[in-house]
């Protein structure tokens, strides 16, 4: 797989296309309508949580960050991101939990909990319409490379890598699903099949399950590295949170 990933890393890729462009008309209409888009419920919950005091500090997110539409604008376009002073690579969920733990003195929120989905959706929503713009630099290059290796590694009983579906067969049908390029720019999304909002890691775990591979835990370093690699592929696509998917 090494040679394949080396070649693919250098070959120029055409402008990426968002998952929503591969979706059916009904799903597209639902995502485009802020009153009909069920994902907006999570954004609204996030807005409430933003000003709710939590933890030993008794502070709310707003207590430090003030007005999210101003202070959180563009933040999601730069994630996953590594702290300036080092530390681990964090996606938005990880960063929010870091503030919970270290700044609010509160418990970390469970991955896929309503609260974490709501806060993540609310923060990411403040970047809606702005282009994904992660930077690959010396601080995160190892993460990027690990993510890329995962992307091109065949795995599971079906022995397939991400590239086989999302790069080689985008636009084709896998049973009833139109395969997209596998970008994360709309997450968290409301998925009709889940009847709920869900994180990017939940979706990624579904893809691991689909090829009958071991599923890394949501929030695990392996999935955050993969998320960084996906974000680098999605550079230039607009953040669409909250997306809608079937």
């Amino acid at each position: 797989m090494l040679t394949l990933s080396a070649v693919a890393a250098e070959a120029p890729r055409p402008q990426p296309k968002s998952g929503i462009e591969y979706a059916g008309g009904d799903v597209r209409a639902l995502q485009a309508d802020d009153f009909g888009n069920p994902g907006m419920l999570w954004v609204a919950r996030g807005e409430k949580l933003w000003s709710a005091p939590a933890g030993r500090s008794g502070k709310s997110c707003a207590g430090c960050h003030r007005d999210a539409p101003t202070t959180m604008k563009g933040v999601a376009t730069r994630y996953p991101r590594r702290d300036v002073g080092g530390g681990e690579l964090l996606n938005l969920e990880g960063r929010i939990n870091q503030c919970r733990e270290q700044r609010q003195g509160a418990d970390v929120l469970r991955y896929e909990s309503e609260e974490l989905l709501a806060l993540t959706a609310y923060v990411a929503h403040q970047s809606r319409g702005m282009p994904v713009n992660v930077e690959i630099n010396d601080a995160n290059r190892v993460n990027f490379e690990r993510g890329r290796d995962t992307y091109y590694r065949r795995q599971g009983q079906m022995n397939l890598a991400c590239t086989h579906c999302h790069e080689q067969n985008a636009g084709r049908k896998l049973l009833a699903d139109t395969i997209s390029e596998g970008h994360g720019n709309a997450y968290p999304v409301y998925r009709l099949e889940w009847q709920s909002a869900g994180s990017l890691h939940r979706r990624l775990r579904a893809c691991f399950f689909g090829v009958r591979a071991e599923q890394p835990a949501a929030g695990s370093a392996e999935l955050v590295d993969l998320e960084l690699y996906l974000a680098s592929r999605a550079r230039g696509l607009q953040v669409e949170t909250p997306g809608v998917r079937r």
Partner: protein
Amino acid sequence: MLFAAMAGHAVAATPALVPYRIEGDAIPASLAPDPGDPLRGRELISGRDGNCLLCHAVAETGVRFMGDIAPPLSGVGARLSEGQLRLRIVDSSRLNPETVMPSYYKVDGLVRVAPAWRGKPVLTAQQIEDVIVYLKTLK
């Protein structure tokens, strides 16, 4: 040519698997003692176990949603012999190392297989024979 290099090549038996012999681009001998059952084969290709319709269309099944990653299998029974079908289902990667088609009768060389499937081929030897007999009816 890849096929020629593989002529007469015997595949070592993994404990769980029946050994088989590749000749040219085919596995001529059946993997199972009993003949295949085309009705079971038809169920397998559209059901969760085989799931061939994820990627292939087979008009004869009348199933509503089918994939188009791979060539339609209609008429495949006229194009390919039983032995040729057997190798393509058992281990397509022997004909095309870059293939997207999973190997349905192989357990080694796979990474990070989920515990529920580890050490097991996707289909049993008997199920492969069932699928072959069904595909041979597609003419």
